């Protein structure tokens, strides 16, 4: 890992609330370090404090307590004029684009250059360069109102990049865009990160956005960072219920209870869901490791000769590695199936929903995977619905519970 470019140390931000005597805590003791070259995704529902958090990076908001270091400088004590040089090294783009409506596209992009006292001809050259980079050359003299949402955000991006910043803050930058335009803007952000080496901090409530371009993720809830890690690990081994809910919006491989009922109605055989994790996932907060899963399933199906129907599933990639789940109907000799599941569950997380005749309670199936939970040191893993690690130590008795159920 390279050097930290942004460091938040026990940062708290409180706002005065009108009716209550107690101040509202928007950001609650957040410690976070973002490295040079990261695309750091901060995800959370609206009101989770993520917008306030990102605004403390360029001091649009000041922390109530704690310190913020950006580009090797403690910015906590700087006044507005002291902040100006720093802010020119941090670009920012917004959900509502925040373009100057009475300035043309070219004038918008030139604005930070004017602030920075660039020479007129340098300004022009830089603006043309940026227009080309974001693909808006023919729109230079239009006003923002004449552009589509995606084009507006490109102008916003060009403007944010004008003074060659080292950091780009993106505050819900794609939330006002349709899915196709979102994809285009994300491609552009990725290009900025890879070609120009700009560190990007991306605030969003859309999991598919961070899935697409973030290499590291923090999940915020009620002002706190409740989960963080490299993107693959957060997706592959989420610990918090909120993270799981977010992931379910991007990757939905595990059937919900209604779907399992439907499946049982249509398929009489044994229904199992196998989680797919291409590689081990390490949780940054407690250093626990969740091993890969579902990597040998095809081989085992062939080895045992079980007859399978693939009936539900979803696999996607995060930072290039596959994550998801597959649901099979298994048919054949029960003993063969048991043998197959026994070997499969040694290296994989397998949820057993039973058969149509002897179905297994959904919550139980999800919270007690076959062969026990795979995280080590003993920690909860996988999308267990109970959301806590209480069952972990009792995975042995969990198995016996299941056997009773099946009998």
């Amino acid at each position, binding site marked *: 890992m390279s050097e930290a470019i942004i460091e938040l140390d026990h940062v708290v931000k409180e706002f005065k609330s009108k009716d209550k005597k107690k101040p509202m805590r928007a950001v609650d003791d957040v410690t976070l370090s973002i490295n040079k070259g990261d695309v750091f995704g901060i995800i959370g529902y609206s009101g989770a404090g993520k917008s306030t958090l990102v605004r403390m990076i*360029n001091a*649009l908001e000041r922390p109530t307590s704690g310190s913020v270091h950006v580009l090797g400088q403690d910015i906590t004590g700087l006044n*507005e*004029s002291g*902040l*100006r*040089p*720093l*802010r*020119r090294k*941090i*670009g*920012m783009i*917004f959900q*509502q684009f*925040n*373009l*100057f*409506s*009475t*300035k043309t596209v070219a004038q918008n992009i030139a*604005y*930070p250059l*004017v*602030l*920075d006292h660039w020479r007129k001809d340098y300004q022009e050259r830089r603006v043309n360069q940026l227009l080309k980079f974001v693909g808006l050359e023919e729109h230079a003299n239009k*006003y923002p*109102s004449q552009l589509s949402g995606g084009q507006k955000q490109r102008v916003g991006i060009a*403007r944010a990049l004008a*003074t060659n910043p080292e950091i780009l*803050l993106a505050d819900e930058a794609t939330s006002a865009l349709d899915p196709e335009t979102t994809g285009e803007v994300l491609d552009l952000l990725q290009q900025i990160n890879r070609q120009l080496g700009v560190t990007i901090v991306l605030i969003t409530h859309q999991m598919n956005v961070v899935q697409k371009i973030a290499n590291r993720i923090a999940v915020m809830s009620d002002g706190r960072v409740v989960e963080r890690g490299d993107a693959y690990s957060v997706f592959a081994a989420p610990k918090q219920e909120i993270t799981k809910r977010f992931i379910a919006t991007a990757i939905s491989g595990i059937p919900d209870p209604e779907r399992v009922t439907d499946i049982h109605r249509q398929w009489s055989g044994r229904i199992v869901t196998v989680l797919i994790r291409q590689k081990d996932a390490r949780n940054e907060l407690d250093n626990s490791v969740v091993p890969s899963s579902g990597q040998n399933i095809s081989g085992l199906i062939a080895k045992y000769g079980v007859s399978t129907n693939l009936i539900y599933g979803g696999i996607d990639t995060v930072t290039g590695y596959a994550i998801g789940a597959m649901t099979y109907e298994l048919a054949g000799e029960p003993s063969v199936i048991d043998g197959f599941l026994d070997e499969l569950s040694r290296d994989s997380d397998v949820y057993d929903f039973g058969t149509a005749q002897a179905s297994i309670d959904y919550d139980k199936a999800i919270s007690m995977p076959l062969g026990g939970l795979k995280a080590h040191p003993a920690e909860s893993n996988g999308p267990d619905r109970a959301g806590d690690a209480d069952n972990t130590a009792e995975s042995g008795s969990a198995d016996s519970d299941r056997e009773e159920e099946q009998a």
Partner: protein
Amino acid sequence: MNSFDFVTVSLAGKPVETITLAANQGWSILKPMLFQSIAQTLEMVFITLVVGGVLGLVLGVILYGTRPGNLFENSVVYRILDIIVNIVRPIPFIIFLAAIQPLTMKVVGTSIGTAAAIFPMIIMATFATSRLVEQNLVPVDRGVIEAARSMGASTFTIIRTVLIPEALGPLILAYAFLFISILDMSAMAGYIGGGGLGNFAISYGYQKFDPAVTWTAVIIMIVLVQVVQAIANMLAKRILKRQK
């Protein structure tokens, strides 16, 4: 009847010769006086519009900026200014003119004539403008201001290059409205010998039972207002079209 007129008008500070000539009520005599009145009106309105407009812009920006959550948030300053503006604004101008006379005397050195009329007009126009400016700045998108801050713009730069340009369309219309208010005020300047079209209409139209004179003044005022409003509409439309 005529002599009574002379007394009242000359009491208001009019040169007696002018009044005597006016008694004839012929257009050959009224015409140059009409032109003089137009010039006086334009002088009063123009000076008030420029000075009061600029002072009002400053006060309006301060009112806006000190509002909670804005650029230089300061609820104490805001509340004080807000109360002062609210006290001054509802006073009818003709009463304000009289009430402020001692101050006018001190500042201008005289309490009669055009200059003495301009001073209270500027004060009233400043307060009126400040509220108009504030109200037209409030709808400016805070996100745009935040964007400028994030780029490292100073507060003054933001006001100059973002806040006012973003509100320019409505501000132009506000100043056209202000022009009409000032024209209205200038009509009352006659009471303290300020001259102008209003005085012309009252002295040589209303008080001489000569509706033609009154209506001449009225029509000239209407034309003035129409021209100013038309120009303002055109400018504002051009700016607003870019924004929508």
